[in-house]
């Protein structure tokens, strides 16, 4: 067969695979926003607002284009999800071509091909590409609006481009492929940095091409060069451009009194001019090409202008407000997330270093770079240093600290079951034990094996036997792996849609493929080195770099898609290996090739049979509707404010505001951001129909570094009272009419210009409105953070006509001083002046639950409800249960029944299984005489708790500690169900379970 014919077949088969992937992804795409960062990305794309650091400006541009294709705002999310689906299919396309290109070289095909060769080469491509299409992690990000689909596409593209360059390398104009690669890598920074990790593998390709043979030494040299290149781009080139820009900006604005941004714009012009000039002078081809690569890399990087320009417009969503080069520097270097020591630094248990200062010992600080902000005086154009960065100095440091985060001290101890320490830091062996057992095995290999061996379920795992482990699907092995009897799983686990088993066949195929590649001569060994480099750089290297502490808020498998991509190349090549084996059994090479191709195809088919049900997100509107319900929980009058906290608590609300334009009279105030000055700035601006929040401070009062924490000193209370008694006039002049009125304390103490007065001199403050007095107790607290001060400031004006709500998922630690003043109105508590513990506003909650809430299509049978959606759905059930209880208490059985029926209709148990909240539901049915329905609920709870408790007892004792929570929870549910059955004399239910309840 001629090259031309082969190329045609190869191109067409590639597009066929693309179409398969695209159709499947488009069929399973989520029709609206998904949880986590997706609602944020959708809003950023649609309205060009600013999301979390380090930003994704190029993604925003492309997403924006797709959002324009939507017929109305409710379709915007779907269109941007479709973008992910198409880009993922594009990634599959390039994966296919990458595999066929590599395999072609392994067969040494040049110009002519035999039929069996063509069959095997194409089969390698199809099997590898489809296996990746149907793999768990990749499919997950292919059907939602995250940057990972785009980033995967770009990774696949540049990897293919460099191989393509190698094909044409001897051609005089082949350099354009290298330049294009540099340009795309520049663009990819505006999507996600992951793409840069291809660099070492790419250098290896170039190096291998130049030397034509690969020794250990030359491979090492090439990798070293690749690593240095990566470090230069990541740590010198990108930050260097910004550093230069910030110097110029200071020079232009502060010294030469030119307008803002002039220095930055000049830097950009100058930079391009210098490179162009050098390009004209350059003679040697290598230097010319390198300069062109640099030039176009910077052109790609220029998409970051979108961030500065749009942030300058001060949109409602403007995270970190990167509207000048100094803020952009901290935004792009992700300063917000704190420093992670890699080589040398403190451990989580390291003691601070102290130095004497007068009579006290104070923590030693290392001063860092100055932080510049625009002058708060708008008539003056200059940058001012607000403070210098401060870093604590630790007494005990160690090399390669793996347990470093002080916030996670308990988490480390828990994971390790106690840590042996020496000289104030964990011993070397403990350090490595954590690195291996948690970071490498739990946070990398577990995810890897999920994709190619099997996944236990979709429940977030922290090492418990019942949550998110990898399994093989072979009972004997799994019993040993998990240390329990997997034959008698509770139905909740065995029917979990996230349970996918592949019997390790894709893994074995991949290993076989890698081995086969290794054995195909010099070319094969060179290829293996390249793919292996990609595999390690996008897998284990990220593990080392991220240095993750335990108990992350969600599973992190999506970070490692690149390494699963590399492994899929080997899965594809497995067909070549199988063919080599089959040929020994079947003489005719064409038949042998066909048989191995068919055998290979079984792998992706088996995979999709497992993964379809937990990746089909069609018909699911939960994220959008739950965000809507948070907003609708607030009353319509008075421009209410809602305090929220985590990602899933906030981003769906943003989506409803920014994209669908829902409840623009309300404002979301995220408590984890409100600690920062840029967010308080935004809260002090009007947004849509919502007026500014009532924060009447001077800018310097909340500027970065000021009033971050304010101590509470109840001991001063008596002194204050004495002062008011002895010199009332002077006291009132100094500290206001009422000493402990919140307004006065904030004004005269906390925001005072005297540093010694920056305390709260009492543990109980009052807010007086007319005759009413609200008392807020701060007892037991040592200090208040800036975010608490903001909440108190908003309350201190006593303006109850503008209600403030706290979202239901706000943790109890977030606003503990308000726990006495919360009134439930749906998915949010209203903060009320009267005290009296948490209570329920039955009328409002009823109205919201029955008429204003939407339930995300959860009534549809066969819908995929994942763990995070289940969590919020259960919160809705919890609210309904409270409402039912309150209505029953009032004797309003009719409305209680209406709520119960709504629950059964909107959040039915086949999608949202009953939990302890369902006991209220059952009680309601018993009270109203609908015993059959009540019995069904109690029976369901008894059956499932029995299944759980029986199974939990099969866990071997060394691993059972992690399951204590499940055990306690299901014991309580069983107890609750039995008690209910007893109260209503359901003897047959008790009799059935009498033997089992002895557990």
């Amino acid at each position, binding site marked *: 067969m001629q090259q031309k014919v082969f190329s045609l077949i190869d191109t067409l088969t590639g597009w066929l695979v693309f179409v398969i992937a695209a159709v499947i992804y488009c069929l399973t795409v989520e029709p609206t926003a998904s949880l986590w960062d997706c609602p944020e990305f959708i809003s950023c794309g*649609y*309205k*060009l607002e600013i999301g979390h650091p380090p930003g994704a400006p*190029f993604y*925003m*541009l*492309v997403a*924006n*284009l797709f959002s*324009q294709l939507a017929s109305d705002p409710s379709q915007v999310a779907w269109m941007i999800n479709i973008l992910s689906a198409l880009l993922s299919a594009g990634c599959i396309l390039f994966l296919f071509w990458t595999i066929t290109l590599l395999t072609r070289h392994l067969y040494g095909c040049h110009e002519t091909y035999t039929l069996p060769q063509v069959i095997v080469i194409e089969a390698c491509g199809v099997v590898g590409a489809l296996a990746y299409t149907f793999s768990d992690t990749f499919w997950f990000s292919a059907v939602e609006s995250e940057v990972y689909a785009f980033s995967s596409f770009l990774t696949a593209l540049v990897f293919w481009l460099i191989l393509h360059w190698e094909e044409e390398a001897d051609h005089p*104009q082949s350099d*354009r492929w290298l*330049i*294009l690669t540099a*340009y*795309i890598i520049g*663009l990819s920074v505006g999507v996600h940095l992951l793409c840069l990790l291809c660099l070492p593998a790419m250098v290896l390709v170039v190096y291998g091409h130049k030397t034509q043979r690969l020794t250990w030494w030359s491979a090492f040299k090439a990798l070293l060069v690749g690593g240095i290149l990566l470090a230069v781009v990541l740590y010198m080139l990108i930050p260097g451009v910004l550093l230069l820009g910030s110097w110029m900006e200071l020079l232009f604005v502060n010294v030469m009194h030119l307008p803002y941004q002039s220095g930055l714009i000049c830097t950009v012009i100058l930079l391009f001019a210098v490179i162009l000039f050098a390009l004209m002078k350059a003679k040697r081809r290598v230097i010319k090409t390198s300069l062109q690569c640099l030039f*176009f890399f910077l*052109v*790609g990087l*220029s*998409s970051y*202008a*979108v961030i500065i*320009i*749009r942030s*300058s*417009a*001060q*949109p*409602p969503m403007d995270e970190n407000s990167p509207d000048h080069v100094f803020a952009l520097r901290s935004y792009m270097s992700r300063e917000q997330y704190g420093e992670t020591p890699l080589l040398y630094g403190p451990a989580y248990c390291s003691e601070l270093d102290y130095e004497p200062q007068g009579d006290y010992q104070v923590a030693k600080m290392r001063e860092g770079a100055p932080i510049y902000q625009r002058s708060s005086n708008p008539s003056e154009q200059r940058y001012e240093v607000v403070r210098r960065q401060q870093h604590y100095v630790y007494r005990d440091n160690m090399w390669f600290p793996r347990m470093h985060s002080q916030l996670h001290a308990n988490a480390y101890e828990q994971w390790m079951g106690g840590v042996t320490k020496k000289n104030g830091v964990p011993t070397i062996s403990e350090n490595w034990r954590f690195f291996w057992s948690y970071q490498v095995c739990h946070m990398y290999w577990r995810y890897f094996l999920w994709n190619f061996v099997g996944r236990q379920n979709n429940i977030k795992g922290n090492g418990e036997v019942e949550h998110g482990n990898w399994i093989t699907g072979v009972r004997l092995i799994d019993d040993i792996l998990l240390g329990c009897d997997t034959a008698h799983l509770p139905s909740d686990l065995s029917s979990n849609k996230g349970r996918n088993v592949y019997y390790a066949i894709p893994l074995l195929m991949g290993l076989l493929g890698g081995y086969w590649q290794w054995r195909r001569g010099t070319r094969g060994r060179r290829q293996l080195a390249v793919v292996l480099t990609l595999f390690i750089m996008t897998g284990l290297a990220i593990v080392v770099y991220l240095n993750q502490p335990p108990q992350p808020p969600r599973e992190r498998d999506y970070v490692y898609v690149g390494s699963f991509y590399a492994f899929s190349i080997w899965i594809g090549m497995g067909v070549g290996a199988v063919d080599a084996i089959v040929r020994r059994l079947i003489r005719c090479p064409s038949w042998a090739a066909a048989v191995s191709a068919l055998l290979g195809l079984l792998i992706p088919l088996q995979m999709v049979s497992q993964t379809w049900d937990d990746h089909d997100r069609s018909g699911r509107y939960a994220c959008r509707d739950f965000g809507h319900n948070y907003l609708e929980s607030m009353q319509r009058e008075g421009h209410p404010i809602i305090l929220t906290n985590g990602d899933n608590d906030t981003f769906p609300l943003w989506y409803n505001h920014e994209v669908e334009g829902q409840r623009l009279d309300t404002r979301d105030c995220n408590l984890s951001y409100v600690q920062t000055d840029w967010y308080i700035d935004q809260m*002090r*601006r*009007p*947004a*849509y129909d919502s007026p*500014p929040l009532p924060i009447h401070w001077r800018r310097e009062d909340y500027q970065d570094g000021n009033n971050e924490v304010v101590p509470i000193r109840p001991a001063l209370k008596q002194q204050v009272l004495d002062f008011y008694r002895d010199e009332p006039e002077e006291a009132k002049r100094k500290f206001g009419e009422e000493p402990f009125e919140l307004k006065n304390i904030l004004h005269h103490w906390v925001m005072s210009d005297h540093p010694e007065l920056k305390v709260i001199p009492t543990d109980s403050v009052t807010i007086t409105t007319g005759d009413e007095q609200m008392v807020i107790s701060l007892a037991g607290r040592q200090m208040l953070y800036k975010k608490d001060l903001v909440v108190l400031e908003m309350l201190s004006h006593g303006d109850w006509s503008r209600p403030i709500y706290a979202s239901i998922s706000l943790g109890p630690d977030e606003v503990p001083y308000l726990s006495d003043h919360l009134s439930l109105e749906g998915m949010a508590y209203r903060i009320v002046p009267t005290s009296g513990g948490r209570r329920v506003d039955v009328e409002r909650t009823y109205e919201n639950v029955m008429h204003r809430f939407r339930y995300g299509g959860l009534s549809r049978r066969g819908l995929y409800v994942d763990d995070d959606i289940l969590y919020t759905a259960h919160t809705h059930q919890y609210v309904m249960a409270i409402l039912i209880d309150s209505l029953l208490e009032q004797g309003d059985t009719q409305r209680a029944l209406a709520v119960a029926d709504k629950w059964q209709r909107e959040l039915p148990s086949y999608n949202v299984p009953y939990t302890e909240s369902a006991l209220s539901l059952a009680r309601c049915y018993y009270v109203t005489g609908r015993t059959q329905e009540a019995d069904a609920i109690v029976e369901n709870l008894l059956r499932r708790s029995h299944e759980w408790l029986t199974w939990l007892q099969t866990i071997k004792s060394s691993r059972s500690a992690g399951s204590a929570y499940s055990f306690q929870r299901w014991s309580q549910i069983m107890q609750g169900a039995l008690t209910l059955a007893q109260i209503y004399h359901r003897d047959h239910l008790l009799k059935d379970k009498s033997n089992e309840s002895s557990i």
Partner: protein
Amino acid sequence: MKKTLIIITAALFIIVGFILMSGPGSTAEAFCPDIFSTRRIVIAPALCLAGYLLMMVGILWRK
């Protein structure tokens, strides 16, 4: 020559896109609905994107 022309056109697209994207912003006193005008969040980003894509054509264009 044609190659250079394409690259310059692409660069112009990007720069004009950025210029169209700019404009006044919201302040503490008033919310500025113009920040979401068609010029700034529809035409401008489309122009920039067209420029970035055209740049690829320019790079690949044979001399």
